[in-house]
């Protein structure tokens, strides 16, 4: 539920509710619970699990749940997401809510077990699942459906897909980033944009935390007025009631900051989601670089083999090679040897040509599919962030109204405090 306008979150994805999956089911991360157990290194730990409830879509409140209604912990969500990242590298995979509370201002707890944090995480996890279910490609994934519905055996199933083997190693990715010669310009631009967006949103969140901290300070000191007015009213006769009332309004004003900042956390969460989205964008860019790099390598490989063939057939040594050197030193090889080598080379070239064609195809496919994805993401981002900014502005308006009203009844109303003074 959007806390500002009390709308169902799924309404935001009106366009995307068109997936077959969401037509069938409603997804809800209904509850959270604390569990204790032994972890992988056999140590006792406390962790939180979340209940995933699937019901038939548009059913009445009493609709029977679909599947096992599994309880999942955060690390299982992470596993699911990693699987999706590897399996669909051209998709901008929706992010999970933050692992640890960051960008906190002093009052907000950084403790993962804090109830407010758990509640916000619950909403974030639900949001994640709904976004995946709204995606035309991701929603069809079997493992995803199993995650939603099967209590036991999901972990084994996901590991059985062998996705971990398919994962590109970090080293390979890094090397590709450094050495790719002709990355597509739109991807370079995309990478730059995602860096800029990342930097802008993190800066924003950092400063917002400081602003929240300062604002809290201002409001809380006003609370001191409440106390002093109360003390002062005790020594006054005519002014006493007026001062008491003024003091009370000061207390109300001071206490209102808690609600204000609580509501702003929702806005911060929306920004955080897009901050984490930039990682998904960068992932797609990296995949492109990797494929492009592999294509370039395949092309180079083909070119060098053709070069070798030419040398072999014409006998001309264009480039220094050990073979050329040794044939100069130790005499030419026999025509039979040359013939067999040429044949082997020809086969190798054929394989290389196929590889280049395949890689080219893969590259083009990837670029086409991912570009569709990026377009969709951009449109979603523009729409949702615009809504978030409008909601933020509306929140500010309602906050100004509330505080202004409180002040107004305090001393501006001539029939209230001032007359009793």
């Amino acid at each position: 539920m959007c806390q500002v306008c009390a709308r169902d979150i799924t309404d935001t994805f009106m366009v995307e509710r068109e997936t077959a999956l969401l037509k069938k089911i409603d997804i809800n991360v209904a509850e959270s619970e604390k569990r204790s157990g032994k972890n992988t290194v056999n140590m006792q730990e406390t962790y939180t699990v979340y209940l995933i409830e699937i019901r038939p879509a548009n059913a009445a409140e009493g609709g029977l749940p679909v599947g096992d209604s599994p309880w999942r912990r955060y690390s299982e969500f992470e596993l699911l997401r990693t699987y999706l990242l590897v399996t669909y590298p051209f998709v901008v995979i929706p992010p999970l809510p933050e692992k640890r509370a960051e960008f906190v201002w002093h009052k907000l707890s950084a403790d993962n077990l804090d109830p407010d944090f758990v509640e916000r995480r619950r909403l974030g996890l639900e949001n994640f699942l709904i976004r995946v279910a709204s995606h035309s490609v991701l929603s069809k994934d079997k493992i995803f459906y199993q995650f939603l519905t099967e209590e036991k055996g999901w972990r084994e199933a996901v590991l059985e897909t062998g996705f971990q083997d398919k994962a590109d190693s970090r080293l390979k990715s890094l090397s590709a980033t450094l050495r790719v010669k002709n990355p597509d310009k739109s991807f370079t631009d995309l990478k730059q944009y995602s860096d800029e967006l990342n930097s802008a949103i993190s800066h924003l969140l950092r400063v917002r935390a400081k602003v929240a901290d300062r604002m809290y300070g201002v409001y809380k000191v006003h609370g001191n007025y409440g106390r002093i007015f109360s003390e002062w009213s005790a020594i006054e006769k005519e002014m006493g009631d007026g001062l008491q009332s003024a003091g009370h309004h000061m207390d109300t004003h001071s206490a209102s900051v808690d609600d204000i900042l609580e509501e702003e956390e929702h806005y911060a969460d929306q920004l955080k989601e897009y901050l984490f989205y930039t990682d998904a964008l960068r992932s797609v860019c990296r995949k492109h670089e990797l494929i492009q790099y592999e294509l370039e390598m395949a092309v180079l490989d083909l070119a060098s083999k053709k070069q070798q063939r030419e040398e072999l057939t014409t006998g001309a040594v264009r480039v220094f090679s050990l073979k050329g050197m040794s044939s100069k030193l130790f005499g030419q090889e026999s025509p039979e040897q040359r013939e067999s080598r040429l044949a082997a080379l020809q086969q190798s070239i054929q394989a290389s040509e196929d590889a280049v064609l395949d890689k080219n195809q893969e590259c083009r496919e990837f670029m086409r599919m991912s570009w569709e994805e990026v377009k969709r993401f951009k449109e979603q981002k523009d729409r949702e962030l615009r809504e978030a900014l409008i909601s933020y502005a509306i929140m500010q308006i309602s906050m100004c109204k509330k505080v202004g009203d409180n002040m107004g009844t305090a001393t501006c109303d001539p029939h209230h405090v001032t007359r009793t003074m």
Partner: protein
Amino acid sequence: RRAIWWVYIYIYIYPTIVYIEVVLTNGKPIETSSPASASSLLNRLQLDDDLEADTLDLYASTETRDLFVTVDDPKKHVSTMETYITYRVSTKTSRIEFDLPEYNLRRRYQDFDWLRMKLEDSQPTHLIPPLPEKFVMKGVVDRFSEEFVETRMKALDKFLKRVADHPVLSFNPHLNAFLTAKDLNKRQGLALLTKVGESVKQAAGGYKLRARPPEYCVMGEYLDTFNQKLGTMDRIAQRILKEQTEYLVELREYGSVYAGWAGSEDALTRPLEGVAGCVSTCCGAMEDLSEGMSQELLPVLREYVLYIESMKNVLKKRDQSQAEYEGRLEAAVIRKQEEKTPVPVEVEKCQDRVECFNADLKADWERWQSNKRQDFRQLLTSMADKNINYFEKCQSAWESLVSQLQDDQAENTNETNCD
């Protein structure tokens, strides 16, 4: 002359009775041990019908003002010896004590200080309103900054108005001189001597007060507690100003981050720049609020701290005057018993002094309480207004942004919005 004393006593006793019987004692009449007890005084009053009419008129006329003073128009004067500020003091009056109906002249702080000293000396039984502080730390505060001069001028204006509104002080010849004389023949030296002389006189007296009447104890306690509360409020106000300043720093950066982000977007440029603009407006509004607080709230708190100091001095002097009377009376009674001499005139004069003092003090106390209520009511209302103003400015900025963005949205898409 005696008649005038009765007039003054009548003016002050009437409200004093009300004050003592209703306000101070919660409706229960008390017996004071003071020689100037309300009931005994009342008994001694010889109410003349004509006098009554006059006194009623006189009382009424203190409410119909016939003396208006204003302090404004500060100007800097630079001379080889010094640089200082003068203020225009304008007077409009119909009183016969003034030769002309209007006066306009320039005075500097020194002149106000002189006036206050003269008033204190010549009217020791009255509460003289305070002046803004004389000395400011040269390094810390700029004596010629617009803000400082403005604040000081407002305080001087208040001081003069309070004096002019006072039924006794406003007739003081020194005030007249201050408002009308081209050159104030200040004779600072003499004033100093008078002050020293008086304190010497009092020290020489060395009378100890036996029993202070409870109403003055109550006043003293009230002043101490109120002083303490004022001090706390001043500290709170300063703290709020400090927090608001730091909040402002962060808020400015917050706005600029939105503006920076807008640069790397296209569809989101307008909303982001819009938010940056709103935040900037809020910053301006907060600046105004802080400025208003520091210019209006802090000076009033400080003024009342000084006022309390003055009032405490007056209470002390009253105690001393009562102590002297009691001392002399005791001595005289003993001598009377021993030597069969009548009570000397000295003692009677002392008694009169004490009675006048008490009457003046109570009247001034009442006036001060009323001023205090008015001042603080106005102050709290003004502070609340400033705060409301701040939130209204912010609210309207955000509202215009929302309507602008929603218009844009309506143009571009058909989606429903959060309302």
